[in-house]
């Protein structure tokens, strides 16, 4: 139990997917113009992350390993992620138009998000059990959401800042992301507890 809790904390804070492992940085910059949008993206990506974290391990364990096809891992995982995102989109659209508008996140932001695929591959590399893989997915989802929403808040502030011309736009956003990831380095050493 403690070990699983540690997996969640490690994935969310110590090895924060975006700020420490630099996975899903495209989404960090692509979907953080407004806080509402960031919350929607964080939620959708988080749900997809948790589902795919388990599904990809199921595929790995019961399809790829018995058939001795580990070299197809990357392609298989991409297919699993794409299908999950598509199905999630249909479910959201069926659920209600309101939720659809709230969670109106371009499917590409989620599908082509290196964080989603990254979690699946990291789970395989660490050969975690299904429960541990789910915990890693939960932690990664929390970490991704946290980074994205914090960063969206900061970027809203940046819009009004008198930034020197050469640093406007992407440059100051990168500097800010750098400082936030420095702050997250304070969590280093947590997994040892």
């Amino acid at each position, binding site marked *: 139990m403690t070990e699983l809790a540690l997996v969640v904390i490690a994935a969310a804070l110590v090895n924060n997917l975006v700020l420490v492992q630099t996975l899903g940085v495209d989404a960090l910059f692509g979907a953080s113009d407004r*806080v509402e949008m960031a919350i929607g993206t964080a939620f959708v990506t988080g749900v997809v992350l948790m589902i795919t974290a388990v599904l990809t391990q199921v595929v790995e364990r019961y399809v790829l390993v018995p058939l001795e096809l580990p070299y197809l891992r990357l392609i298989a995982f991409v297919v699993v992620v794409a299908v999950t995102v598509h199905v999630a989109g249909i479910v959201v659209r069926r659920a209600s138009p309101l939720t659809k508008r709230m969670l109106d996140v371009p499917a590409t932001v989620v599908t082509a998000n290196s964080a989603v695929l990254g979690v699946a591959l990291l789970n395989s590399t660490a050969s975690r059990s299904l429960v541990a893989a789910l915990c890693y997915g939960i932690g990664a989802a929390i970490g991704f959401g946290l980074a994205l*929403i*914090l*960063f969206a*808040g*900061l970027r*809203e*502030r*940046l819009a009004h*800042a*008198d*930034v*020197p011309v050469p*640093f406007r736009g992407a440059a*100051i956003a990168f*500097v*800010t992301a750098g*400082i*936030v990831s*420095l*702050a*997250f*380095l*304070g*969590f*280093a*050493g*947590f997994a*040892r*507890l």
Partner: protein
Amino acid sequence: MHFEQTSAPHAPPLVSVAVVMQRVLFALLPAALCYTWFFGYGLLINFVLVALGAVLTEATVLRLRGRGTRQALRDYSALVTAALLSFALPPLVPAWIPLLGGGIAILLAKQLYGGLGKNLFNPAMVGYVVLLISFPVEMTQWVPPQMGDIDYHGLSFFQQLNYSLLGHLPATLDVDALTRATPLDVVKEGVRSGRSFFEIRGGALFGDFGGRGWEWVANLIFVGGLYLLYAGVIRWHIPVAMLAGLLVPAGVFSFIDPAHYASAGFHLFSGASMLGAFFIATDPVSAAATVRGRFIYGAGIGLLTYVLRTWGSYPDGLAFAVLLMNAAVPLIDRYTRPRIYGQR
């Protein structure tokens, strides 16, 4: 002939930025003298070097941007950043550390965001964290207090200056002979290696609550903080919330298991607790703006400091805690907006 025309109201501002910053520097003075008394001249040398780095960087950036340098350099804000950063640095470091730190603090955290009043993060803490992560060896060269029964003699002013600028130490000494672990470090490593907190507390380094010498500096920082409160430079919400956020979990954990968790008093008088509560977390620019937000912001810093000190790998987590909460400030302000009068 040029006459300046202004519209009403004509009341002059009672306090300018420069006056506020002067008061902050004044409030740090007793603690700085006490620090020098116990730990040698390193703090003063570092302050001059950090200030040099900070002011030069500020002037260069403003010159490059074609802005007037005079106004910005006269408001003392770079000196306050320098003072806070020099308190955070170990006394025994080569000169390029404080110079670089001052430059990084001003360039990365202040001028890139548009200068005074626009920074998202506390400049001194950004400078400190960058230095700590980039140069971990130099940034842990802490010295013990020079007190009668602790068998230790510090460097004289010129020996200290000689080390800082040229890297030369007196022939019989080397850096390892001069530096010791800080009380926070001693407690953390001691508890990790299975010793009890009471046993560790018995060491010569420890006084009534925190480390000897350190606790006196903390006392004087507290006095300076009270002066800032009295002068109206800071308000009470953040210091109270921050100390509560630090002391409540410390008290609970040390009540449950006093042998393995340091006492609340130790946390209060160790590391950067006091400096953080009264001088760092209260930075009006990077802190939350609403009253409820200030409570959340302060408590968050205190709690994160405790968590990072107790379970993290760095002895003191205050700088990281401040930066993490700085990052959360836009969200805190967003969700603690006061109700507009007349709105439901």
